């Protein structure tokens, strides 16, 4: 079946521009995560959606970052006024529940801020 889909796969943007990254989770998965992977920094938690509960935004690094999940399915991560330190691979993952089900990862969006 279809896995987690992320778009675009690559994004190059100029410093100061806004970007939107999209994630289509596996159908029926109630939990959705966004992580950021930078060289040598591992997987940094950004935000977590679980069903209709309020999202856990505790990992968002600044107020330039926001995310929403519409209709319990597709999610969009928005970065406003991008900075060079935002360059990273942004990974989306979904799972059937939240805390004890394996995560299914997308292939990520590689963001480069010039």
């Amino acid at each position: 079946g279809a896995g987690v889909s992320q778009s675009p796969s690559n994004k190059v943007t100029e410093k100061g521009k806004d970007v939107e990254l999209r994630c289509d989770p596996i159908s029926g998965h109630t939990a959705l995560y966004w992580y950021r992977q930078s060289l040598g920094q591992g997987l940094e938690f950004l935000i977590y959606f679980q069903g209709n509960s309020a999202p856990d935004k505790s990992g968002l690094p600044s107020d330039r970052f926001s995310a929403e999940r519409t209709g319990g399915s597709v999610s969009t991560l928005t970065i406003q006024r991008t900075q060079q330190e935002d360059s990273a691979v942004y990974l989306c993952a979904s799972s059937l529940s939240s805390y004890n089900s394996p995560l299914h990862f997308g292939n990520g969006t590689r963001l480069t801020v010039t």
Partner: protein
Amino acid sequence: AQSVAQPEDQVNVAEGNPLTVKCTYSVSGNPYLFWYVQYPNRGLQFLLKYITGDNLVKGSYGFEAEFNKSQTSFHLKKPSALVSDSALYFCAVSHRDDKIIFGKGTRLHILP
């Protein structure tokens, strides 16, 4: 809040030798523990998980991990390493109703 540590950035093992990739965690209450693998130019894949029960869990590709509550560890092991096991390995922890947190990753090099 939960946290997870992978104390080794890189582990080198000769092919055919046993391998261990270390992971320790901190969580209030009973942990849920996971290992994931990232092969070069490929997405992250689930290897195995510990939720409850037997402390030794078996996963994909011949890997296993041992949950040790007293040492708060969940080390990944394999009896005989293959060159194809070379990859980036991530340990992760969660707790009931809370998010899944990953470690910084350990790069495993299997030397032919």
